[in-house]
């Protein structure tokens, strides 16, 4: 197609597309009459192409596919039909959804004929412990036996490793379609809904939450019985997400449509029985009004999600009188709306006003605790409404009660006071019973040792297993919090049980690690971590008072001191930190003779290193280097003896070398320092290469690149430094993508970007450098807003401001002498330098400037002086 003929072809083509297919040939005859034959041929080719799929091919274009056409020969849909899955023979496919496909099957082992639905999940479970959890959950679900719940019959994994569930086959219609098809009245809809509630309540009593209540998961059989499908399966599916470390509800993309999801599901909060109550509320809303509770502009998932989290639901009684909803908004059931169109909307509005409005709005509360406490209460309230009794959802005002009462008893108003009292007593009794039942159930379910074991499994086994997987941080936090919750609740009852108290201390320590271990993947909450560690310390110190020579306890105590020291150090509280580090070292030295396990020996080295580190921060370089050398000697010996834990000891040795390198740098020995840092990079590169899935090693490697960049920067090798910073940036960026909650990595993304930007400023690229420094600044700002403000972030700000100043100074000296631009640039530079100095001054006042940064304020003062000198030479008129 030539460029010159295209406008004409386009015009004719568009004209044709506007017409119905049978009109086109006539139109082409006319419009192409005076044109060369090739024009018509082109138009016809394009018309055919459009008809073949040109209209919507962009909509179905799947970006996740490899860029080569997949074989079209095998229709994947059918590959299951006729196959056996367990004892079942697949007969047809009945559905397909976001998570997999649903097949109809028949039991084919000759014993008896039973129909079943098989759901195959499309994501394979690859980790053993996830598979284990899948089995465990399945057992619980299989035990759900209720007339309104579709039985889970079986489950397993196919030959290809895909998990599947076998469920009772239900021949029915989705709830909303059923209500519409049978023209159910308001009362009948409420009764059907109560049957649904009874099924959910039954499951909740067995601690199973459905998590995915929607009309499509509730089928109504020909006899009118609702059957709930997929109970609790959503939770099992979440398990696979542990692998990637993200709660599926935490992202919009995790949900096909968030129409029925609760605010806490969308936000990634805790899923409880209240989640189901919310979804039931949306369901009821729709059954009664034919509308969705919120006004939304469009139908994109994020718009719906925002409405769920932020918008106030419209009163159902108002919604029914609302005209036809925008076509894009979710509008599932419309029978009652159709009724409304027939002039009944006023009647419906009256029926909904009051109780039903209140009941539904209560279920839709944004805060789970403001919804009904149980599904039973919800069902009870609907029952009360149907019977004309007062509902708890309504504020129990006297006038309301009286109104109800008068309605019910019409004439017997005389007895009002008596009935009122009876009602009140009835309420009190109901609440009281509910509370007793609750407590007893809780106690029975506690099963002291079971819970303790569960907590331990969660926190130590699973937590440990996923620790080094990229993206595992939120999953770890969840695990630690759950386990701590269990242990906390036991601690009260088990006071004086030393072994349990020790578990409790360990749990606090783990939670501290996840919350804010300053040197490992963590959520960056330093204060929270310090509090956790101190709780652990308190327990351990009191335990030790009874057993002063318990070696294991002593070692735990030493580790505890160290972790507190890490936090204090990160806070910039070096003096306190040194005290804690020395306590830890002292314990380990006293035990040194008894140490045979290489890990313990390594930990002793770790304590020397820590003391060295704090000494370094306090400015005592000679002592510091001495402690580092002791640590290095111990670790070199460990590595040379080559025990099993080679990787770990090697990476620790690299850490010691890194520290030595830093002190050497501070002492001004650049050559030695850089050489030492290159050794660190070498070791970490080898280790990370050998263990590509180990996120921690990759992080260490990235850090090593970063520090090499720093050293080179200090020895004025801008080109070398730029290269190292870029390597650091790329690696940290990858880590941060894989685990967006990893604050440490994010922080380093900022610092390496800043370093690279700074080096560009230095090597004659101030504009490029400026852009990078600005990006780095944005990262620090985001981290600060995110609540992970600390000395590191502050020093990031200080450094960013410095480089902004430097970039503008460079631009100033490049611009035309005596120009306005020059003045402006010098002013900019001066402003940024002053900002930087202010941050450093504030940090210094808190004794929180790292030793490596101590000369910076002085340098900045010189720069400021130079700005002032330059500005003084410029014409005054141009200044601001």
């Amino acid at each position, binding site marked *: *197609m030539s460029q010159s003929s*295209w406008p004409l072809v*386009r015009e004719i083509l*568009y004209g044709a*597309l506007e017409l119905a297919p049978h009109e086109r040939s006539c139109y082409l005859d006319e419009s192409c009459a005076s044109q060369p034959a090739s024009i018509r041929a082109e138009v016809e*080719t*394009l018309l055919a*192409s*459009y008809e*073949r*799929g*040109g*209209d919507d*091919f*962009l*909509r179905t*274009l*799947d*970006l*996740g*596919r*490899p*860029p*080569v*056409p*997949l074989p079209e020969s*095998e*229709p*994947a*849909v059918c590959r299951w039909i006729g196959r056996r899955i367990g004892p079942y023979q697949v007969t047809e496919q009945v559905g*397909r959804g976001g998570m*997999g*496909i649903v097949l109809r099957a028949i039991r084919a082992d000759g014993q008896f004929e039973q129909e079943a639905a098989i759901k*195959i999940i*499309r*994501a*394979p479970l690859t980790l053993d412990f996830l598979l284990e959890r899948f089995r465990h959950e399945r057992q619980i679900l299989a035990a759900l036996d209720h007339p309104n719940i579709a039985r889970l019959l079986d489950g397993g994994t196919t030959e*290809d490793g*895909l998990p599947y569930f076998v469920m009772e086959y239900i021949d029915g219609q989705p709830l909303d379609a059923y209500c519409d098809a049978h023209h159910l009245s308001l009362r009948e809809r409420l009764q059907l809904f109560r049957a649904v509630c009874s099924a959910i309540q039954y499951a909740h009593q067995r601690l199973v939450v459905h998590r995915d209540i929607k009309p499509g998961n509730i089928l109504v059989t020909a006899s009118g019985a609702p059957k709930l499908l997929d109970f609790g399966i959503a939770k099992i599916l979440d398990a696979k997400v542990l692998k*990637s470390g*993200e709660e*599926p509800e935490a*992202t*919009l*993309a*995790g949900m*096909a449509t968030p129409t029925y999801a609760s605010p806490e599901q969308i936000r990634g909060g805790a899923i409880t029985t209240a989640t189901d109550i919310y979804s039931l509320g949306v369901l009821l809303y729709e059954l009664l009004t034919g509308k969705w509770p919120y006004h939304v502009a469009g139908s*994109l*998932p*994020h718009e719906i999600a925002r409405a769920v989290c932020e918008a106030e639901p419209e009163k159902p009684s108002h919604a029914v009188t609302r005209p036809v909803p925008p076509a894009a908004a979710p509008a599932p059931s419309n029978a009652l709306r159709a009724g409304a169109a027939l002039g009944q909307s006023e009647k419906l509005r009256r029926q909904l006003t009051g109780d039903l409005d209140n009941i539904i709005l209560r279920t839709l509360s944004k805060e789970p605790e403001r919804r009904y406490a149980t599904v039973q209460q919800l069902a009870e309230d609907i029952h009360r409404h149907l019977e004309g009794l007062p509902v708890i959802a309504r504020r129990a005002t006297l006038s309301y009660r009286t109104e109800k009462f008068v309605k019910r008893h019409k004439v017997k108003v005389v007895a009002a006071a008596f009935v009122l009292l009876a009602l009140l007593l009835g309420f009190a009794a109901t609440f009281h019973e509910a509370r007793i039942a609750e407590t007893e159930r809780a106690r029975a379910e506690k099963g002291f040792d079971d819970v303790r074991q569960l907590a331990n499994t969660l926190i130590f086994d699973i937590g440990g297993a996923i620790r080094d997987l990229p*993206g595992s941080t939120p999953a770890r936090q969840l695990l630690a919090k759950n386990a701590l919750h269990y242990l906390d609740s036991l601690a009260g009852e088990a006071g004086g049980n030393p072994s349990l108290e020790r578990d409790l201390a360990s749990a606090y320590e783990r939670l501290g690690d996840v919350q804010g271990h300053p040197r490992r993947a963590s959520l960056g909450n330093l204060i929270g971590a310090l509090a956790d560690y101190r709780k652990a310390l308190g327990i351990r110190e009191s335990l030790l008072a009874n057993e002063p020579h318990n070696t294991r306890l002593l070692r735990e105590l030493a580790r505890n001191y160290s972790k507190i020291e890490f936090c204090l150090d990160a806070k910039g509280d070096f003096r306190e930190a040194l005290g804690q580090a020395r306590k830890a070292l002292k314990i380990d030295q006293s035990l040194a003779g008894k140490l045979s396990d290489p890990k313990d020996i390594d930990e002793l080295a770790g304590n020397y290193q820590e003391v060295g580190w704090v000494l370094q921060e306090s400015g005592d370089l000679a002592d510091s280097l001495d402690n580092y050398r002791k640590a290095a000697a111990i670790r070199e010996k460990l590595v040379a003896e080559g025990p099993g834990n080679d990787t770990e000891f090697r990476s620790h040795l690299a850490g010691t070398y890194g520290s030595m390198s830093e002190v050497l740098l501070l002492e001004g020995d650049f050559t030695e320092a850089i050489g030492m840092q290159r050794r660190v990079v070498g070791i970490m590169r080898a280790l990370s290469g050998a263990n590509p899935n180990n996120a921690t090693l990759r992080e260490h490697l990235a850090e090593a690149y970063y520090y090499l960049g720093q050293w080179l920067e200090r020895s004025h090798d801008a080109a070398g430094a730029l290269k190292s910073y870029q390597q650091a940036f790329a690696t940290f*960026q990858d880590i*941060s*993508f894989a685990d*967006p909650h990893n604050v440490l990595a994010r922080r380093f993304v900022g610092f390496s970007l800043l370093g690279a930007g700074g080096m560009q400023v230095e090597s004659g690229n101030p504009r490029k450098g400026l*852009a990078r420094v600005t*990006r780095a600044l*944005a990262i620090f*700002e985001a981290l600060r*807003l995110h609540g992970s403000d600390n000395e590191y972030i502050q020093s990031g700000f200080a450094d960013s401001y410095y480089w902004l100043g430097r970039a503008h100074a460079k631009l100033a000296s490049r611009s035309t002498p005596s120009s306005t631009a020059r003045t402006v640039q010098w002013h900019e530079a001066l402003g940024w330098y002053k900002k930087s100095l202010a941050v450093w001054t504030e940090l210094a006042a808190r004794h929180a400037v790292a030793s490596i940064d101590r000369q910076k304020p002085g340098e900045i003062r010189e720069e400021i002086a130079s700005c002032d000198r330059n500005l003084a030479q410029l014409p005054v008129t141009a200044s601001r």
Partner: protein
Amino acid sequence: MPDRITQLLEGCSQRDSQAAADLLPLVYDELRGLAHSYLAGERRDHTLQATALVHEAYLRLVKQEDVHWQSRAHFFAIAAQLMRRVLVDYARSRLREKRGGGAVKISLSETLDIPQKTVIDFLALDEALDGLAKLDLRQSQIVEIRFFGGLSIQETAETLALSPATVKRDWVTAKAWLFHEITRSTRS
């Protein structure tokens, strides 16, 4: 950060070229991050559309309602271009992986869900778009903004200062042309 982005966006709509230069890398990084996690199969929804990615990026970066309409449109127009680049880079890297003999993971779960429509080669679309740009630059821009940025006909018209009727004509005929172009190259 959101404030900063908003500021840059406002700057862009006032034709401040430095604002645009500063904004691009931020948006690109965000899109690349999002796309990375989708395409690497870390998200559940494999068939996610570029449009939704751009919207998510917008939500994450801008996070506020009171952004001026032009700024919002500007974001989507920029993001659309960048999204195309991200996806092309990704598709290329997949191709390299394949050529280099590295294992491309095509799990069974993927074969479960093949749409019964023609499978489009993404790089072919990119190439075809380049071809269209030679024929009519504006038409290729319209496709970019609509397909990668998810703007409506009306919004596209306002962003490019065209009439909605023109946008619609260009969009419909561009699709016919592109589909013809792509299926032709796939067959050969």
